[in-house]
C-alpha cells in the first residue's frame, strides 16, 4: 500500500476527498439532505443548520468532508460560500470573540475591530454576499467552551445577520441543543449517522481493497466465504465505518478466512484508540468498565458490579447511569420480572475484548470469533439449530473457564432462559434471537453506537 493510497480512519480530513467520496457507502440520503441545505442557503435566505450525531468512528467527519467536496465540485454553488472550520475539539475557543476572530482571520479581515458586533459586521462585509459555512466538529465541546453567554451571542449573530450556516457534529446530543431553556434549543436539523449494515460494511471493505490495490483481498471478499466472514465480523464491529477501515488495513484473505487472526489483528490496531478512550474516563468508571470486560458474564447487575469492584452499590449505580448516558453501556431488563434489576453490558464488544486482549486473555474473543464464524458459515441456515451446532463445536474444541461459562450462557439462552439471554454478549445475540426478530435491526453489537463522550 503506498502512502498516497493509505486511508486515515481517524483523520479523514487529511485524505484525498475524492477517494473518500468514492468509497462512501450508506450515506446517500444524508449527503443529499446536506446538499439540499447548501442549495437552499445559496439560493434563498434559508439557514438550515445541521448537526450530525453519531459516536466516535461512525463517520461524521467523513460525511462532512464528502459533503464539502461535493459542494466544491459545483463551482457555481461553491462560489456562494466561504467555508471556515472551527478547531476540532474546540482547542483555544475561549469565547465567542475567539470564534469571530478566527473567522475574520480566515476571511482575510485585516486588523479586526475590537467589539464583537464590529467584528461580525466586518465578517459580513468580507463575505460580500456569500454565506459563511461554519464547520464545527464536536459541537458539544465548542458550546461548552463558549459557555452560556457565548452560546447566546453566537445564536444572536447567526440569527440576526443571516450570514451563517452551521454544519456541525457531535458524538451525543447534549443539553445545549436539547433543553428548551438553552439558546440553541431546536436550532439544528439533527441527523443521526447510522451504523453501516453488514452489506454496507462489505461494500466499504471492497472499495477500500480497491483503493489500496489489494486485489487478492477484493477477490476473496467477492466469494461466498468472504461475504460470510464479513457478515460474522459485522456482529463485532457493529457497523462502525472506522473499525471497517482499520480492518481493511490489517486483514489478509487468509486471516479473514480464518477470522480469529483477523479479530486479533483488529484488536491490536485498536489498542491506541481504546487506551486513550479508557484513560479519559474517571477512575471509578474505569474500574466498572474493567469489571464489565473481565467479569464472568458480559452483562452484570449493579450488585454483581459492586461485588466485583469493591465499590458500594449506590456509587456503582451512579457510575453505570453515567456510563449509560454517555453510551458506554446498554441497560437491559427482563421483559417480565423484577423491574428494579438491570443488567449492564458494554455497548461496544471490541472494547470489552480490548481489555481482555491487553491482559493477554484471548480465550473468550477467540471463542466468540469461532462461534460467529461457524454460525455465519456459507450454506448454513441461521437459527437455533445452527447456533447449537456452533456451541457444540466450541465445547468440543475445549476452552478455559470463562469460555465454558460463555457457552453455558448461550446454551441456557437457547433453552429459553430470559436472564441468560440478557447475559449473552451483544455480538452473540444473533445466535439466540430469531432471525425474523432481528430483521432490520442489523448487528446486535453496537460498535457504531459505542462510547460517545470521552
Amino acid at each position, binding site marked *: 500500500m503506498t502512502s498516497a493510497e493509505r486511508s486515515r480512519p481517524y483523520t479523514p480530513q487529511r485524505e484525498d476527498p475524492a477517494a473518500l467520496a468514492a468509497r462512501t457507502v450508506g450515506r446517500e*440520503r*444524508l449527503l443529499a*439532505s446536506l446538499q*439540499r*441545505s447548501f442549495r*437552499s442557503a445559496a439560493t*434563498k*435566505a*434559508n*439557514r*438550515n*443548520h445541521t448537526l450530525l450525531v453519531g459516536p466516535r468512528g461512525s463517520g461524521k467527519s467523513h460525511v462532512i468532508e464528502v459533503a464539502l467536496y461535493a459542494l466544491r465540485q459545483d463551482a457555481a454553488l461553491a462560489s456562494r460560500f466561504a467555508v471556515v472550520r472551527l478547531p476540532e475539539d474546540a482547542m483555544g475557543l475561549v469565547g465567542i470573540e475567539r470564534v469571530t476572530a478566527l473567522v475574520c482571520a480566515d476571511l482575510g479581515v485585516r486588523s479586526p475591530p475590537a*467589539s*464583537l*458586533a*464590529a467584528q*461580525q*459586521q466586518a465578517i*459580513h462585509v468580507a463575505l460580500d454576499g456569500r454565506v459563511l459555512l461554519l464547520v464545527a466538529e464536536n459541537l458539544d465541546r465548542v458550546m461548552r467552551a463558549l459557555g*452560556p*453567554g457565548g452560546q*447566546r*451571542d453566537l*445564536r*444572536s449573530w*447567526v*440569527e*440576526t445577520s*443571516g450570514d451563517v*450556516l*452551521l454544519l456541525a457534529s457531535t458524538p451525543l446530543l447534549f443539553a445545549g441543543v*436539547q*433543553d*428548551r*431553556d438553552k*439558546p440553541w*434549543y*431546536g*436550532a*439544528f*436539523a*439533527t*441527523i*443521526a449517522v447510522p451504523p453501516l449494515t453488514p452489506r454496507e460494511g462489505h461494500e466499504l471493505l471492497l472499495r477500500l481493497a480497491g483503493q489500496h490495490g489489494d486485489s487478492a483481498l477484493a477477490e476473496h471478499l467477492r466469494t461466498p466465504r468472504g461475504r460470510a466472514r464479513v457478515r460474522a465480523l459485522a456482529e463485532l464491529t457493529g457497523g462502525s465505518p472506522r473499525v471497517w477501515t482499520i480492518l481493511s488495513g490489517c486483514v489478509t484473505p487468509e486471516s479473514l478466512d480464518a477470522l480469529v487472526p483477523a479479530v486479533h489483528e483488529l484488536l491490536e490496531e485498536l489498542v491506541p484508540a481504546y487506551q486513550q478512550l479508557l484513560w479519559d474516563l474517571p477512575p471509578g468508571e474505569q474500574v466498572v468498565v474493567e469489571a464489565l470486560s473481565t467479569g464472568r458474564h458480559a452483562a452484570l447487575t449493579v450488585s454483581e458490579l459492586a461485588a466485583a469492584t469493591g465499590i458500594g452499590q449506590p456509587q456503582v449505580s451512579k457510575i453505570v447511569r453515567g456510563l449509560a448516558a454517555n453510551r458506554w453501556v446498554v441497560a437491559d431488563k427482563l421483559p417480565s420480572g423484577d423491574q428494579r434489576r438491570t443488567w449492564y453490558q458494554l455497548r461496544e464488544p471490541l472494547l470489552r475484548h480490548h481489555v481482555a486482549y491487553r491482559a493477554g486473555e484471548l480465550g473468550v474473543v477467540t471463542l466468540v470469533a469461532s462461534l460467529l464464524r461457524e454460525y455465519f458459515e456459507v450454506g448454513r441456515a441461521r437459527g437455533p439449530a445452527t447456533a447449537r451446532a456452533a456451541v457444540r463445536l466450541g465445547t468440543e474444541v475445549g476452552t478455559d473457564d470463562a469460555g465454558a461459562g460463555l457457552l453455558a450462557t448461550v446454551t441456557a439462552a437457547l433453552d429459553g432462559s430470559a436472564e441468560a439471554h440478557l447475559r449473552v454478549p451483544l455480538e452473540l445475540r444473533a445466535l439466540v434471537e430469531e432471525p425474523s426478530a432481528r430483521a432490520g435491526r442489523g448487528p446486535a453489537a453496537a460498535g457504531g453506537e459505542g462510547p460517545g463522550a470521552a
Partner: protein
Amino acid sequence: MSVLQPIEPVLGGVVDPDDLVGRRDELRRLERAVAHGGAYLVGDRRMGKTSVLRKARRELEASGHVVLYVSAETDTLRKFEDAVAEAIRAHPVLGPSWRTWRRSFEGEVTLGFLGQSLRLQGAASRGADPERDVFVLCARAAERAGAPSFVLIVDEVAQLAFHLAAQEPGAGAEFLRTLRRLRQAERPRTAIVLAGSVGLHHAVAEKDPLNDLPRIEIGPLPPAEADELAQRLLLAVFGDPHPEVASRIARAVAGIPYYIHSLVGTLDQRGADVASADVDGLVDQSLDENTWDTDHYYDRIAKYYPGEEALVVAVLDELSHREAATRDELAATLRNQFFEDPPGVAAVGEVLNRMRLDNYLTYADGDYRLETALLGRIWTRLRRRRG
C-alpha cells in the same frame, strides 16, 4: 388556483421570508400597530416569532420605513449597546447619518442606555451641543430620507432583561423601563417592535412592563395554512405534496410550524414510504422519547411555581380533558381536589394568569384553554409516563 411552491425544511434555523407560510393576520396587525407606535410579539419558543419579525422587516422596508433590527439575546447591556451601534453604522440610511453625528464629537463615540433614553456618549467638540438621543437622531435621518417612519425592532427582549435581572436586582426592569420611555416620549413617526419568548414576569417584578404595547400572539397556524406548509415541505423533499399525509401531519402537531418542519425532516431521514407513514405514531414516539424536550412543560413547574406545583398540575390535568373552563369553574373543580387547603378563586385566577404568560394557557371570552391542542397531547402522554 396558485401552483404550490416547494419549501425546504428548516428546523429551527433562519427561514427565508419568502418561505414563510401564513401569518398574514399577524403581519397586518403588526403593520397597523407600527403606525401607532409599535407592538410586542409574544409566543412560545420555536413558534416562529423571529420568522414573522423578518418578514415584517422586509415588508416595512419595502414600504419605505427605515428599520433597525437588533437582537437582545445576550447577557450584558454593553454587548447590546454595541450591537445597536453597529446596526446603525451598517444601515444604508442611518450609517451615513452616524458619520455626520460623529463630527460633533471628539474621540470615541459609543452608545448607551442612560437615564431616559438610548444616547450617544462621548466628548462633544468645542462649542458643539449635539443631539444625543439616538431615537431622535434616527427618526430625523429617516424623515430626511423620506421614510414614513423609523422602526426599531428588538428580538428576544426578555432574554436580556432576564439576564440583567439575574446579575443585578432591578437591572432588567430598568432596561425595560428605558424601552418604555423610548416609545412613550413624544416622538412622531417612530415605532418600536419588541419580541420575546421568556415571560417577562420572570425577569421583573412589575406586573406587565410592556402593557402599553399591543400584544400580538404568535401561535399555531390555522388548519389551512398548516396544511399548506406541510404540503410544500413534502413537495420539496418527496416531489409530491401528499395532501392527505400533509393534513395528518398538520393536525398531529396542532399546526405548529416547527414541529411540521421536524416531522417532514424525520420522514426524509427515515426514507419512509410517506403515503403510509404513521404520523401519529411518530409524534407519540417523539413525545415519549422527549425528542422536542416537551417534558419541559412538566419539569419547569417546580421552578416557575414553587409551592403551587400541585395546583398547576391540577389545572393542566383538568384542561387536558375538557376543552375550556372559566376561572370559577376551575376553582370549583379544584376545591374538590384540595380538601384540606382549597385555593381561593383569586389565588386560582392569579396562577391562571401566570400560566397564560408561561405559554400553558390562552384566555378568551372568559374561558381558559390549553395554549395548543398539542400541549394537551403532550400533557396526557407525559402524565401517563411519569405519573
